């Protein structure tokens, strides 16, 4: 890392440390907090270390810093995990597990895979121990059959890396059920992409139905 980069990083860290976190931050009502976040956002937008889609965009960086403060996490984490997919801000799949871990409500958070690998029975759910009462809670199980029935499968990632996709989806299902606030109302990247090709699916369904009929003759 070059000397300049280190200096920029140090400056960022110093500025960031001045930003109050969680409920203490209300940039929409507190002018001082707003100015501070705006300064940080401006600085981050000039950095070449932040992801490219945030470079030169202080407004986007502002949102990332504000969200990070509310989530008690680093703006860099937000920037690396928040994409705009099909016009919607969406979390990266891997961020979901990190957010479940970071929200502080759970411990021993892990994926449990079920069924036979490579078949429709293959599934995955997330299990965790709730800190407040020590109870083990399980998220909804996501299976390959569900992916097919819901037509997520048209997203090629379900064909190329099904295990990974099951894991991502299981994490977002868990988060939606037990800590929806951690996702801040946003969908995950995979959810947006899975929902998107539904129309292709309609055409695909027709293709499959025609194929079945014409080959069956």
């Amino acid at each position, binding site marked *: 890392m070059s000397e300049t980069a280190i200096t920029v990083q140090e400056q960022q860290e110093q500025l960031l440390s001045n930003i109050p976190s969680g409920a203490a931050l209300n940039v929409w009502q507190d002018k001082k907090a707003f100015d501070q976040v705006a300064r940080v956002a401006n600085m981050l937008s000039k950095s070449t270390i932040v992801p490219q889609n945030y470079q030169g965009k202080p407004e986007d960086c502002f949102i990332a810093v504000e969200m990070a403060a509310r989530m008690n996490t680093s703006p860099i984490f937000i920037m690396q995990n928040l994409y705009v997919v099909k016009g919607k801000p969406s979390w990266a799949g891997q961020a979901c597990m990190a957010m479940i871990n970071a929200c502080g409500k759970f411990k021993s958070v892990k994926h449990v895979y079920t069924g036979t690998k490579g078949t429709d029975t293959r599934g995955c759910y997330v299990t965790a121990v709730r800190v407040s009462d020590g109870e083990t809670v399980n998220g909804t199980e996501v299976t390959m059959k569900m992916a097919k029935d819901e037509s997520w499968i048209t997203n090629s990632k379900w064909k190329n890396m099904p295990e990974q996709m099951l894991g991502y989806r299981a994490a977002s299902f868990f988060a939606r059920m037990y800590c929806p606030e951690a996702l801040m109302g946003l969908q995950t990247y995979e959810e947006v992409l899975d929902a998107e090709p*539904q*129309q*292709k699916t*309609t*055409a695909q*369904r*027709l*293709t499959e*139905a*025609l194929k079945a*009929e*014409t080959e069956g003759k």
Partner: protein
Amino acid sequence: MTEKEYNAAPGVRRSALWKLTKSPAHFKWELEHPTEPTSALIFGSAAHCAVLTPGLFKEQYAVIDCDLRTKEGKAAKQAALETGKILLSKDDFERINGIVQSVQSNPYVMRLLNGPHEQAYFWTDDITGESCKCRTDAETDVGEQHYIVDLKTCNDASTEQFMRDAMKYGYHVQAAMYTEGKRLATGTESAFVFVCVEKDPPYAINILQCDDAFMLKGMDDYRYLCGLYHECVQRNEWPGYTGFDGEINTLELPAWLRKAVE
């Protein structure tokens, strides 16, 4: 119902409604001054007939295999016109044969066209109360879904070009209006599929199923056009570009040119 009976039946059809997008004045003029069909339109209708109702083709079309300017050609033309047939050149006839063969060699297209053809529907638009009508090329059930299938002959059947053509000629309004008409007239929900065949060798085929956004855009435009039509009928006014109130429009530069002066 024959095409003649359908044409004479009351109700506004999609191709007429689409003319309102130019202006109500154009719509009215064209309604009152029908022009001779263009050669492209004749070709499209003939191809439709050859594919969907081949039994009627010989009754409706005559193929002229000589120069229409010659004596022989003139006589052949006269003979055809006297029987009420529409003339097709040999070249067009060969291309129509090419289209038929291409369609027949595609099992999916044959399956999609395997259902009642030329079904006419009449309904009253539930918002404006206007009478509407449509006639589907073909209808079929595949699996549990009912499909309305429309055959289009085109110069370029690629998905990208067909989308541009759809927006230019209002095919999205057709898809929305036909499914809406079918629903209101019979209660059946349908999906809409275009079977596009190119007019020239290799007579390539594209099968396109309309997605939700395409249908929504079609429904929006249908609603707008039906509303505009209703307004024109109610007022008995058919304005040109200045609208019902004779408004003056702003002549503004497009965004890319405006940048140069701002």
